[in-house]
């Protein structure tokens, strides 16, 4: 690959979101924006190898895409002449223009696009697909592979979502302060879901999954940059960084899962941990807790310890108590019970798990199995492992659970 081609690919992944956002703001139409930006990159792939990479590649792309879109409106002038006049845009030569890019983060066009993609009137599956495609610069087949759906299904999902945005007139705008908390919720949920989808250990397509994790971290960084005053945004970024820091230790070379107590902590990325801890501290100073900040704080306590034994489990339980007040779900209660087992022993942990409505959740049975094994109830532990194996279709999880089951002593 030539230098220019590599640059184009990199610029596309990093900057196509910005370019599409600017075009959507100017022209109010996602299809027009996407097409114009694609065309601009096509022109770049012809021009740059010969003429050289321009001094400001993203600015060059935006200007070229803008010109393409104006050309298109001119061709269809009978229908859109008022729009063209209203824009009053004159095509400029991208090689002549200095191509000023916005520097004020709140003026960044991507923020309006994020809120458009994650509008609450769109289903979450559509929000995720749109965000990855328009802001992440992922192609439809890549998104389809990541979410294990046929390409045609993903393409249809995107077409339908774009059609709804246009027909129902879902606006391109940044929510007002008083609605920001509500509107932010689906945005954060989408980024978190993208990360978790990548984080789920799976046998095949590891590259696609790594890509999703990186993309989620990139989106979280973007949100934190665009909305520096929102503690939950910082909390989400910290949570992702602290999970990402541990990812190299989560699997062995053959793809088997390694649980946190057994992980080789020297593989943890100390740079990401330091950054995550700093974010958590700055959140704590603001004292406006929320579910993402609390989960980040829990991860900060984990990554602060030299070993599982040295972890401040009392602190973790206190944080789970707070998290339960925000999100009183049985899964949070299960995680709290696991921490209780670490502090007060397996019997206390099992007691805390009693009555949780999680019969269909593999991790519940896996956690119970581990504790049952520790108190010597091998037969019950075996049954719980079997239930966990039945309830997950993830290869790496299954392998891990079979290993645990086979490691049980003779039945008592």
């Amino acid at each position, binding site marked *: 690959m030539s230098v220019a081609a590599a640059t184009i690919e990199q610029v596309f992944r990093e900057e196509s979101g910005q370019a599409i956002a600017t075009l959507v703001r100017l022209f109010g139409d996602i299809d027009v924006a996407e097409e114009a930006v694609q065309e601009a990159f096509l022109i770049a792939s012809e021009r740059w190898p010969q003429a050289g990479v321009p001094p400001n590649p993203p600015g060059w792309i935006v200007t070229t895409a803008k010109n393409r879109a104006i050309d298109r409106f001119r061709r269809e002038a009978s*229908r859109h002449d008022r729009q063209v006049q209203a824009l009053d845009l004159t095509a400029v030569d991208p090689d002549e223009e200095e191509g000023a890019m916005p520097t004020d983060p709140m003026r960044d066009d991507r923020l309006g696009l994020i809120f458009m993609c994650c*509008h609450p*009137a769109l289903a979450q599956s559509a929000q995720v697909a749109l965000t990855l495609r328009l802001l992440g610069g992922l192609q439809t087949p890549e998104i389809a592979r990541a979410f294990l759906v046929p390409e045609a299904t993903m393409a249809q999902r995107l077409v339908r979502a774009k059609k709804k945005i246009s*027909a*129902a*007139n*879902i*606006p391109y705008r940044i929510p007002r302060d008083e609605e920001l908390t509500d509107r932010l919720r689906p945005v954060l949920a989408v980024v978190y879901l993208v990360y978790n989808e990548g984080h789920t250990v799976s046998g095949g397509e590891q590259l696609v999954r790594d890509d999703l994790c990186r993309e989620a971290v990139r989106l979280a960084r973007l949100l934190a940059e665009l909305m520096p005053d929102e503690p939950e945004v910082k909390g989400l970024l910290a949570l992702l960084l602290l999970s990402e820091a541990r990812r190299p230790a989560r699997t062995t070379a053959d793809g088997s899962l390694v649980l946190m107590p057994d992980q080789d902590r020297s593989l943890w990325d100390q740079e990401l941990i330091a950054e995550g801890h700093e974010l958590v501290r700055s959140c704590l100073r603001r004292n406006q807790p929320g579910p993402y900040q609390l989960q980040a704080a829990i991860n900060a306590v984990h990554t602060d310890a030299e070993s599982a034994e040295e972890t401040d489990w009392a602190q973790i339980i206190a944080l789970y108590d707070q998290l339960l007040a925000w999100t009183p779900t049985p899964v949070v209660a299960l995680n709290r019970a696991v921490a209780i087992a670490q502090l007060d022993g397996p019997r206390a942990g099992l007691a805390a798990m009693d009555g949780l409505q999680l019969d269909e959740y593999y991790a519940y049975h896996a956690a119970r199995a581990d504790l049952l094994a520790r108190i010597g109830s091998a037969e019950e532990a075996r049954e719980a492992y079997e239930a966990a194996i039945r309830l997950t279709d993830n290869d790496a999880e299954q392998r891990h659970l079979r290993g645990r089951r086979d490691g049980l002593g003779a039945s008592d």
Partner: protein
Amino acid sequence: MTQYLLSVYMIDGQEPPSEEEITKMYADVDVVNEELKQTGAWVFAGGLHPATLATVVRENAGEVLLTDGPFVETKEQLGGFWVIEAADLDAALTWARKATVACQAPVEVRPFQDVPEQ
């Protein structure tokens, strides 16, 4: 500006509201209607008699047939609607929030197709 249909869905077989509740509902809907008119969002609105009183007319092989009763036999039937004009979906959803609270029933928001330019 986009026009939106706000459909109010009534669920058959539910306990009918008390006289008092109905009076409050009418009063609340009046308040919404007044606000719609004052802000220029109002296009048209109306409440419907129950779907059991409906008649369906359809053409089949050159013959027009009538059937007594609603087109779709479901528990959820259209009970009334608004046609409003709003700047975008967010503005339409703000009206829909007021509408669902006033009617105490789910409200479906659907954009009208653009009128083709002549």
